[in-house]
């Protein structure tokens, strides 16, 4: 049953990747890549059980952290065009 779950997760990753390639705006692409990362976390966890190696769960945990930080960083970069602290007057129009 882990094989079927892995194949279904790979199919969903293909669907979200298609939206990431096609998305009209950059926000569609960010959303699709974020969902792709979540599905990757699930795929790594299921694959760890498939091969009976629970060490993969550590990789899944770190991947979840990287996915969150990366998505927030890309959102901030798209909005402000830099990754530093807020410049004077930058938050006034939000």
């Amino acid at each position: 049953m882990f094989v079927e779950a892995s194949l279904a997760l790979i199919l969903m990753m293909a669907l979200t990747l298609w939206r990431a390639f096609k998305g009209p705006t950059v926000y569609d692409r960010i959303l699709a890549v974020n969902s792709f990362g979540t599905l990757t976390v699930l795929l790594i966890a299921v694959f760890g059980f498939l091969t009976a190696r629970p060490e993969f769960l550590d990789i899944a945990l770190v991947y979840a952290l990287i996915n969150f930080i990366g998505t927030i960083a890309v959102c901030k970069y798209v909005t402000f065009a830099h990754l530093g602290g807020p410049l004077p007057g930058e938050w006034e129009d939000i």
Partner: protein
Amino acid sequence: MALALDIASWACLVIGTVFALIGAVGIVRLPDVYSRMHGAGMIDTLGAALILLGLILQSEHWLVAAKLVLIGVFLFFTSPTTTFALARAALNAGVKPLITAGKARGAAASDSTEGGGPSSS
């Protein structure tokens, strides 16, 4: 007992996979970025939670189950944060939500320009 655990784990994996598949199809099919966040939310909440619960029922050591619970808790906290930041960035950049309020459903579907996608109602 082991058979009951296997059946419960199999059911959780199948139902979670179906939920995540519906979310992935929603990401492809829904018309604009704000409604596509709904599909991403289905993947992040029920899909991920049920798949992780199915894996917890299969785990033999308590540390494996603890790591799976940790992954689930982390996804539950980060998914709304990410969606909120993304929606605020999109609204701030001027992406308009697709609104067809006040129109009949058939009229909204006929003048939709999304190329076969379902119209928002």
